[in-house]
Every structure is written in C-alpha cells, then in structure tokens.
C-alpha cells in the first residue's frame, strides 16, 4: 500500500506545483471534473489534441513571420486559435503570451511578434513537458491502478484515502507540512464524495 501512497503523494505534489507556478489554472481542474467512467481518457484526449493543434499553429506562425510581406491578419488568426485552446485546457502562461502576441500583431510590430513567438514556444514546451510527466505519474502501474489513473486532483486523491480513513489520517499526519492542509482537503474530498453519493451531477 505504501507505494500507492507514494505515487499518490507524488501526483498531488506535482499537480499543486503546476498550479502554484501558474503553468496550469483552474480550467484544468474543470477538464478533470468532466472526465468520468464513460470516457476515462477524456483529459488525455483533449490534451493530446491540444499538443497536435498547437504544434501545427506554431509551425504556421514561424512560416508566416518569415515571409517577405508579413500577413498580420493571418498571424493574428493563428494566435487567436492558440489563445483559445490554451485557455480551454488551462495552460495559463501560454494564454498570457498569446494576448501579448495579439497586441504586437495589432501594432504590426515584427520584432515584437518574433519575440512573442519565441516566448510562446518556450511556454508551450514547458506545459507540454509538465503535462506529459503528469500523465506518466498517473499511468504508473500500482495495486489500484485504475483508481490511481483517475486521481488527478487533490480532492480526488484524498477521496481515495478516505476509503480507508486510517490510511488517510496517517498519510497526511506523517507529512507535517500537510497538516494544515489536511482539514481543508478533507472537506473538499468529503464534499466531493457526498455529492457523488447524492447522485448530483458534479456540475
């Protein structure tokens, strides 16, 4: 059971870090909330789509900026798309750079645009790496791997713990730094379970 706890802990830590660094925002949580048994790979599918779409757009942007006569409208359209999809999956930093990028397009500022392209590539690469790692941790084989795979929020991870309350208490209390968070997270997790039990859609 300890290895399960370890992995769980890793997952919780890692996800929290991504939120703290502003790499992901609450919209990512919303995506996770949408996932259910009827489509257990929903988040992975959406994120994969995001990767494919973003890479296409970044290529188009690079090409467009290399043209003799730069088509700012076209560039703006691509950035608009990228802003939209990054916003939908919660890739906050990518979205922010896209906003700046659109301003540069409006100003027809070629250097600004080139700088923004570099920045957005960097932020995209960062979020891609982080998300790929996140899915690797989630996909790791463990005793209860099907539950582990679905534990992608702090609340859900603790929910799993709550199936065995003694485990949960020991888990959180052993980690002194989490002690303060324990009650807060426990409330979230219990609320989550309660709503599930009442058959209320988690909407």
């Amino acid at each position, binding site marked *: 059971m300890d290895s399960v706890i370890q992995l769980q802990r890793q997952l919780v830590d890692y996800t929290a870090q991504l939120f703290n660094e502003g790499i992901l925002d609450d*919209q990512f949580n*919303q*995506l996770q*909330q*949408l996932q*259910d048994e*009827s*489509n257990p790979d*929903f988040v992975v*599918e*959406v994120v994969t*789509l*995001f990767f494919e*779409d973003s890479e296409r757009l970044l290529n188009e942007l690079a090409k467009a900026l290399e043209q003799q006569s730069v088509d700012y409208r076209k560039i703006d*359209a691509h950035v*608009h*798309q990228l*802003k*939209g*999809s990054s*916003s*939908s*999956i919660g890739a906050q930093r990518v979205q922010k750079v896209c906003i700046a990028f659109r301003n540069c397009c409006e100003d027809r500022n070629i250097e600004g645009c080139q700088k923004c392209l570099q920045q957005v590539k960097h932020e995209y690469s960062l979020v891609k790496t982080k998300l790929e790692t996140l899915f690797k941790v989630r996909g790791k084989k463990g005793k209860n791997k099907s539950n582990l795979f679905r534990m992608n929020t702090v609340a859900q991870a603790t929910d799993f713990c709550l199936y065995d309350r003694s485990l949960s208490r020991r888990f959180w209390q052993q980690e002194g730094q989490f002690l303060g968070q324990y009650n807060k997270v426990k409330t979230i997790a219990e609320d989550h379970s309660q709503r599930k039990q009442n*058959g209320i*859609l*988690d*909407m």
Partner: protein
Amino acid sequence: MASSSSLSSSFSPSMGFDFDEKPHVLAVDDNSIDRKVMEKLLINSACKVTTAENGKMALKYLGLADGQHPNHSDLRVNMIITYYCIPGMTGYELLKRIKKSPTMKEIAVVIVSSENIPMRIKQRLEEGAQEFLLKPLQPSDVTKLRCHIKKLKNPSEGRLCRGK
C-alpha cells in the same frame, strides 16, 4: 414526466426528459479542442450532441445551406451553441441566417465568445440570441442552458443530413 428506466441515467427524472428524449444540441466551433470540451460538457448534461466546425457546415446540417430545400424529416435540434469568431461566417451571421428561416427560427441560439464586449453582447441578445456566454464554458453555464431547453416545447424540424 420521465418514465422510469432500468438504464442508468445521468440526470434526475425531475429534469423532465425521458432517456430517449435527450435534447439535441448542435455545437459550432472552429477550434477542435473547444468542440471536444463543449461536447463533453453537453453529454455530461445528458444532451445529444452534434458538432460542426463552421457556420457553413452547421447550415448544411440544418438543411439551410444555399441550394438546399428544407424537407420533411425527423431532424430535431433543440439548441445551437456557436462560437462567435469563426472565420468565414461569424456566429452572429449564423444567428441571422437561422432567425431568417421559417423552419429553424424558433431554435434557441446561444453565442459563446472569448471576448467580453458588453455592447456586442447586448446587441446580439437583442437580435435574438438566447444567451451570450463567455469562454471557457463552465458547467454552471450548461445548467443555465438546460433551463432554456426545458422551456422550449416544440423542437423545430429540418432536413436530415448525415455528417458533421
């Protein structure tokens, strides 16, 4: 009222829909990620969903494209949700086309935009949009939409058309 069903429904019977009478929503967005998310949001709210990537495809599906003749059919669409900034035909233009159609004008059209421009929002609502929502869509937005669908009594009919 919904008849009892042995199949597990993901919504409570008090919603007023039978398992077989799920509201049918046409979701229009040129962004594939947003289409997927919108689709899941709606499916989780017990709707049937058809997606289209632009206004032209949406009109074709509804049988309103140029050259099409709306026919007797069993296509039932309860609501159309469309993104505003789609190249080629904006959500606004789509709204206008739908409102011009004698067969489809009663369908609720909801516009979704990533930009919060109050003037634009007000105008679109005045011109017949049922609701104007901001991206990214939240589950609470979908709950709001379901209330709108509940109020509609007769879904409009149009041409049966396969393909998204």
